[in-house]
């Protein structure tokens, strides 16, 4: 059981809803993924939009985690969080304060300012951060309910570019660590869990895969595999081989009778 933001979650996979070609595929992927928590963005109403995202998500029985994607300043992010609270009647917020259009990596100082302000305003803040262990600690110190470091840029599929930093974050954190952004495929998700992350947040790797529903199943299994492997206690890495068949009791097979 993952305890995150006061919730008890059976699934350690948080699903981003961006990038799915249709609401129907999103619905199926949610089911395949087993997720209990999904992100949504807040945007101007689109007159041409067919079907209601919120209805689909409510029917799926998942909780909403609104984000502040697209915000480049603490001010905009805070405002967006407040709008999201009105829209979705939740104090949960995935806080994004982007610093760079090219990498969509967060702006550390603005992120920290926004996090502090939202915590003070009663939000349960889940910040999307970079893989800097110091910033992760600062976010925790101002009262964030988790830290969500990027493995690599959003949608890049590069995986965990610096496992060493993610391990440092995990080692030091007293709140849950959610690997957010960069996952490309199942082994990346398994690795995140083996590094000690408490959960994985995944959007593009699933929604933009050739077969999103199958990939949802794959990432779900990978998250479970990585978590179980962590709990099972892996063997150490060794420089040399260690035989898995006994090296004693070998027969003497060469040749004739005893002289």
């Amino acid at each position, binding site marked *: 059981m993952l305890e995150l933001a006061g919730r008890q979650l059976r699934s350690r996979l948080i699903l981003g809803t961006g990038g799915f070609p249709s609401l129907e595929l999103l619905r199926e992927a949610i089911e395949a993924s087993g997720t209990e928590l999904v992100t949504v963005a*807040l945007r101007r109403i689109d007159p041409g939009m067919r079907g209601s995202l919120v209805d689909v*998500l409510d029917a799926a029985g998942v909780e909403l985690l609104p984000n502040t994607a697209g915000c480049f300043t603490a001010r905009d992010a805070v*405002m967006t969080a*407040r709008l999201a609270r*009105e*829209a979705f009647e939740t104090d949960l917020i995935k806080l994004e304060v982007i610093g760079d259009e090219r990498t969509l990596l967060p702006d550390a100082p603005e992120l920290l300012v926004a996090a502090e302000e939202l915590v003070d305003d009663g939000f349960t803040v889940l910040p999307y951060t970079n893989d800097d262990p110091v910033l992760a600690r600062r976010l925790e110190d101002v009262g964030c309910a988790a830290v969500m470091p990027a493995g690599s840029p959003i949608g890049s599929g590069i995986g965990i570019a610096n496992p060493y930093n993610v391990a440092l974050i995990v080692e030091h954190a007293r709140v849950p660590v959610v690997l957010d952004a960069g996952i490309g495929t199942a082994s990346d998700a398994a690795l995140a869990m083996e590094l000690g992350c408490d959960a994985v947040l995944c959007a593009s790797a699933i929604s933009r895969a050739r077969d999103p529903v199958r990939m949802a199943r794959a990432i779900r299994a990978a998250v479970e595999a990585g978590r179980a492997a962590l709990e099972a206690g892996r063997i150490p890495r060794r420089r040399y081989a260690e035989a898995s068949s006994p090296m004693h009791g070998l027969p003497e097979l060469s040749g004739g009778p005893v002289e």
Partner: protein
Amino acid sequence: MTASVNGEPREVAAGTTVTALVVELGLPAGGRGVAVAIDGEVVPRAEWGTREVDEGARVEVLTAMQGG
């Protein structure tokens, strides 16, 4: 009377409330999944029924989109 709704000029009758505007835009009356800001300030849902849209007001009507 003209206000700006989601960046576009829009004629609104004097005395139009936020609730009325939201319904006009084809959104569910209940407002689940919808948020409104006027002139850079959030309008809490509790005030939608009474808060009127003024001449020149900059109204943002937002809803859930796939994302994140």
